[in-house]
């Protein structure tokens, strides 16, 4: 009897890693074939982002920092899509720049191309590059860029080019999107979608316009600090934030022609199971520990 108990207790404490890993793979892959909608409660910070995006004036452009690539597309991708969808629905012009990764602009362009195809499919007018949005491109030095954006945005973007409607390369500042931008405060907001520490760099240096951020789950806590202190007007964190935005969009734009549910809806259910697995593993470990501990106590007495 005691034998069984001991072996069980110690088994629970020392499950071989391969077993754990295999279970994790199964748990994270199988459920994806059977997506199910989940109830949700939006967190305050995501609501603030949503409210910001849905209330900013339509005649002012938004400046978007897109500092993510495919390695974090699971979270950042979903957040980015939701934001762009909202802006497109409100016909707000936007300019995208990046300081994190040379690939980021391409990644962003690809997403926008997809969303445009989606709009065509739902016979909405596609967002034209140069007239409706423009990609400023990549800047190698985050600190310097943030400084000079805050200091003189025209100067910061001066020697960046983008193909115009006809496909000829022209300075981005000549584009209809940025035509009326004299300084950074002419943007209704700067929304930074980031998976790296460009968040701190930006908070430290860009002070002259509304700042909101969409960060990965891991950056949540440290960025939360700036949200609490009011330096950020809104903050969407990771997959939860993504799902929050998607549910809020679904409430605001219930129409069939609107695609609201995307990455968030796709991954959130699976995430639950994965987290559940983690909790179970921890519980198992502790139960095992207590079982063995009890045993030693018994022996001691």
């Amino acid at each position, binding site marked *: 009897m005691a034998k069984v108990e001991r072996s069980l207790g110690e088994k629970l404490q020392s499950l071989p890693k391969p077993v754990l890993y295999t279970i994790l793979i199964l748990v994270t892959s199988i459920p994806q*074939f059977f997506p199910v909608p989940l109830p949700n409660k939006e967190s305050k910070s995501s609501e603030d982002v949503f409210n910001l995006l849905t209330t900013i004036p339509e005649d002012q452009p938004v400046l978007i920092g897109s500092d993510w690539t495919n390695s*974090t597309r*699971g*979270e950042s991708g979903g957040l980015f899509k939701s934001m762009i969808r909202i802006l497109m629905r409100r016909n707000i012009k936007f300019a995208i720049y990046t300081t994190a990764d040379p690939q980021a602009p391409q990644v962003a362009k690809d997403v926008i191309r997809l969303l445009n195809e989606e709009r065509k499919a739902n016979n909405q007018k596609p967002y034209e590059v140069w007239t409706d949005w423009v990609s400023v491109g990549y800047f*190698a030095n985050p600190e310097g860029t943030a400084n000079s954006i805050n200091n003189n945005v025209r100067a910061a973007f001066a020697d960046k080019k983008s193909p115009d409607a006809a496909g*000829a390369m022209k300075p981005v500042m000549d584009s209809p999107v940025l035509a009326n931008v004299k300084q950074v405060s002419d943007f209704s907001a700067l929304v930074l979608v980031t998976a790296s520490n460009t968040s701190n760099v930006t908070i430290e240096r860009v002070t002259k316009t509304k700042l909101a951020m969409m960060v990965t*789950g*891991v950056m949540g806590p440290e960025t939360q600090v700036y949200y609490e202190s009011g330096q950020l007007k809104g903050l969407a964190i990771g997959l939860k934030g993504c799902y929050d935005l998607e549910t809020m969009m679904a409430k605001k734009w219930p129409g069939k022609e609107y695609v609201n549910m995307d990455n968030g809806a796709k991954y959130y259910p699976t995430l639950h199971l994965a*987290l559940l697995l983690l909790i179970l593993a921890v519980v198992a470990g502790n139960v095992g520990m207590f079982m063995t501990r009890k045993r030693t106590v018994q022996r001691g007495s």
Partner: protein
Amino acid sequence: MDPELLLKIKMGVGVLATVGLYSVLYRENKFYRFWEHMFLGLAAGWAIVALWTESLHDDWYVKIVGNAPEAGSTAPTTPGYWAYVLLLPIGIMGYFVFSRKHNWLSRIPIGIILGLWSGQQVQVWFNRYGPQMADSIKPILPTTSSFFRPGTVGMSPTDAAAANSQVYVSDAITNIIFLITLLSAVSYFLFSVEMKNKFLKNMTVLGRMLLMVGFGAIFGSTVMMRFTLLIDRMYFIFIEFLKNGLFGGT
């Protein structure tokens, strides 16, 4: 080549690479080693490419030689600023690091980089921490005797505003906890203060405990992202590649 097929091959390679790198979970093996070295190689190669195409070409070379306006562009001819070329010899000094006699020269470029960084610390310090300090200043005494913030449903906006403007006893307590956490945690990082008296000792101990609460919360919220990335990978392998790719979305 047929783009459809190419795309599938591309995804296939991606899946192979993923599996190869995952195989280290079981143990270090030749398959992993292969992908690891390829990864390192490609990364290094890309560093060499990006160095010129994404940094030096625009930030340095074009500044030196200037550039002519393109057709249909309003930009004027920018002249070359030759002084930028002086950065090159400074960079070259770094390569003396292997010389027995003159390796000290390599400290000059490093010194410049460090100097710039250090200067920036001075420049950004307050922008970063000033607002945080301001936000940490919280009322620790209530402005009313009632303990909890009342429900404001059904109140007129004016009354609601009035009700919310109060600092309730519960708020005060929360703020006090906030301050205790902050101060005790900071005091944990006081290294030169001898914690002779009991109060200070306990304060640092408490500080460490409260730090652990913070760490727990961080761990919790990080888990979400890590799993999301894994789920996304699995989505790529099983849905995008296997389901939609190989079996054509059937």
